[in-house]
């Protein structure tokens, strides 16, 4: 599985789900483990667990998956892919300040 395909997968599933980390696990399981077979269930669970017990955000388990499949570059790329939907916050902010000014 190419790095680009992995990032697109992570980005798409992340943008489709609300709430953090765990909601994406079944999507990744169906895609990466069952369909493509690039990851074992053990690996997926290991990734999920290490991100859960470390401080900070739990959704960095995609970094672990990226590292397993593409090394350090994969870890960084997957992390970027999972943070990108956060930028949807900006239009919301602008909308809020716009309505605040008119009120």
């Amino acid at each position: 599985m190419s790095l680009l395909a992995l990032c697109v997968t992570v980005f798409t599933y992340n943008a489709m789900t609300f709430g953090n980390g765990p909601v994406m696990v079944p999507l990744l399981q169906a895609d990466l483990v069952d369909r493509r077979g690039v990851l074992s269930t053990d690996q997926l669970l290991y990734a999920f667990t290490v991100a859960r017990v470390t401080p900070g955000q739990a959704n960095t388990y995609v970094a672990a998956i990226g590292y397993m499949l593409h090394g350090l570059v994969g870890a960084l790329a997957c992390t970027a892919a999972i943070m990108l939907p956060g930028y949807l916050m900006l239009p919301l902010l602008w909308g809020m300040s716009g309505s605040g000014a008119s009120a």
Partner: protein
Amino acid sequence: VAGDHPDGGPTPRPGSPGGPITRRALFRIFLKAGLAFGGGLGILAVLEQELVTLRRAIDREEFLRLYGLGRIVPSGTMTALAVAYGYRFAGPIGTAIALCGLVLPALVITVALTAAYGLLQQHGWLLDLLPVTILPAALAFIVVAGVRLGRDVFRPSRELLLATAAFLGAAVFGLNPVVLLLAGGAAGMVLFGRREASS
């Protein structure tokens, strides 16, 4: 002395009493937040203490409003908050600064532990320990997350109907979760849209 903080709260740090937050401070705040344990709420507590209580860069009402906005953004709420505060205090570059600070600790530790997993695989006997250590922990985490998410749904409601259908779809018919998600969204729109219109 008149003019000093009469409410007796902690004195804001020199140079940033309610004023704009520098890029360096922004990075430091989010790095500290990224080191917090307890997932989203742990991070939120650090942000509240730093931005509202200590630096008074933002008032509590707006802090809560931004949190509410962040929750309706897909992906992580804290990611959305990092973008919001980064942009507010330091513009487009600020979003990158805040995101980097937030993710750096977790990223470094996670990658280190994943590299350790690679080493485990080279020593087969250590790998045999995984089924009795890490994997049950993972399942426990997932069950807890599921129970937390489900707490609001497990009472007589139309949501419960959808949740049951989705569970059957996954457990009995082995449907793809993507299909389930989209079907659930569509069914929800039909069911709840009609209720909104009729009430």
